[in-house]
């Protein structure tokens, strides 16, 4: 594995930092990779831009910040606008499709829209797990970590009362990806 850089961006309160922690832990502890995760948020508890940065590699990581990312997971239009310049031309853009409408037209870009909030609300019954729905779909789409590692990381860090709906969010995210790829006639 070469160096993979990931940015997850959204608004404070969406669980962007937690989503980053889960992805990072899954890769570090359950897939034995070198991982650095940093985060950035405003002084206010909710409502300002929030960002999670993850770098994965087989060898030691020094500079801990993302410069050109392979994967951008956007949960807000502003976030996409701000961090799109950081995304590689042939990178992966995964976005929440009710919040991010204006999608850049770049030839080599691999894009995936996920109705994460709709799935979280209607199928799982809790809007809070939209972050997990989208990272589960993204993880499978880009093959950065396995479903199993994600679930183990969730079991480690999500409080027990919320654990089951978070694990269900992983299943639903992957289920969505499967149907979307089938529609597009792509292998799952």
């Amino acid at each position, binding site marked *: 594995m070469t160096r993979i850089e990931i940015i997850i961006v959204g608004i404070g309160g969406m669980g962007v930092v937690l989503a980053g922690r889960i992805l990072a832990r899954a890769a570090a502890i359950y897939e034995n990779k070198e*991982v650095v995760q940093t985060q950035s948020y405003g002084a206010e508890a909710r409502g300002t831009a929030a960002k999670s940065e993850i770098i994965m590699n087989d060898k030691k990581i*020094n*500079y801990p910040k993302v410069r050109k990312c392979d994967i951008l997971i956007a949960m807000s239009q502003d976030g996409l606008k701000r961090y799109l310049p950081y995304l590689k031309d042939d990178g992966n853009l995964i976005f929440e499709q009710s919040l991010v409408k204006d999608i850049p037209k770049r030839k080599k870009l691999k894009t995936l829209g996920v109705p994460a909030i709709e799935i979280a609300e209607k199928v799982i019954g809790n809007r809070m797990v939209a972050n997990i729905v989208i990272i589960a779909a993204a993880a499978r789409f880009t093959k950065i970590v396995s479903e199993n590692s994600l679930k183990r990381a969730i079991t480690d860090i999500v409080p027990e009362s919320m654990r089951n709906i978070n694990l269900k969010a992983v299943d639903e995210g992957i289920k969505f990806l499967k149907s979307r790829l089938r529609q597009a006639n792509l292998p799952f």
Partner: protein
Amino acid sequence: MINKQDKQVLSGTHFWQGDIACAEGAIAAGCRFFAGYPITPASEITEHMAKRLPEVGGIYVQMEDEIASISAVIGASWGGLKAMTATSGPGFSLMQENIGYACMTETPCVIVDIQRVGPSTGQATKAAQGDVMQARWGTHGDHEVIVLSPNSPQEMFDLTIRAFNLSELYRVPVIILADEIIGHMWEKVHVPPPEKIEIYNRKKPSSFSEPVFGGVGETEIPPMPRIGDGYNLLITGSTHDKYGYRKTVDPEVHRKLVTRIVNKIRKNAEKIIDVEIQNIENADIGIVSFGCTSRSVYDAIELAGREGITVGHVRLRTIWPFPEKIVRKLAEKVNFILVPEMNLGQLVYEVERVAGCEAHVKAISKIGGGEMITPEEILSEIKRFLRRRAV
């Protein structure tokens, strides 16, 4: 019943945030008292101590502010516990007077400053390295403290243990000067088995008549009794003799006391100083770095190497006492020394002082928004200075 011994050292591999690793390092070192007031980006240390200390039989107190926090820590230390507090710039400013009290009363304690953008409340959630001189000279009067600078969650664990050991050994406040990047960064941390962790505990007096504020050689440390053990103890921030009696006009007593509390650090500096050194023998140019910025330097060195440039690097794990000998050695080997730091110039002046006429010293400064100095920015400065030499 919980076996408190089992929970002291969480041996194994973890994926921890720097702040959590710091709290775990403290507990592994035997810290059993924490008093603090939450502040970004150090709140996670406070939060983790609140959760963990009761599990190991320790005491956590959330105080009304940072002045009270450091006061409680000093009191707990005299009560015989290893004690710590954690804060950031604004809280660190409030603690300064009592850090001086801890220096003067020779009270072992650990103070963690996770630096953020200042002055004042600045940018609360963003990283900076602007408290380098405050850590050294924040409190008034002649004094010496020890300041450690970790650059990873692993070192947040390791250096917190070392901070406690040094503070117990030298009876001095030890400051862990980290920054938001390191405090909030998540990375793997390996915790060794308890028997592999070296722990030092303060020396106790052997009799009630033994002086506890002197009566020893310049590089030696007097023993420290515990309140409640029966020792007739006088503890004061005013100048005192070896038994603790106030002597607020006698010049000799003051000279003796303050020279000793300064020299116990200065004359033991070589034992305290801990640096990481990369290729200084055949260096074309030098860098002195600390904290999160040193991680950019590692990558810059690799990038420079690909272009045939050898960069000599001294990375400070202890900032104070300042590692004069090794920095002077670097200055003798190269014409230029760069000092990247996330402030408008602090450590650079210390490097300049030590380098003297041997090398030109230049800061690479960057402030605001928590933006790190990148490896590419360091590389371009390296090349700019090497070109200058060619002319």
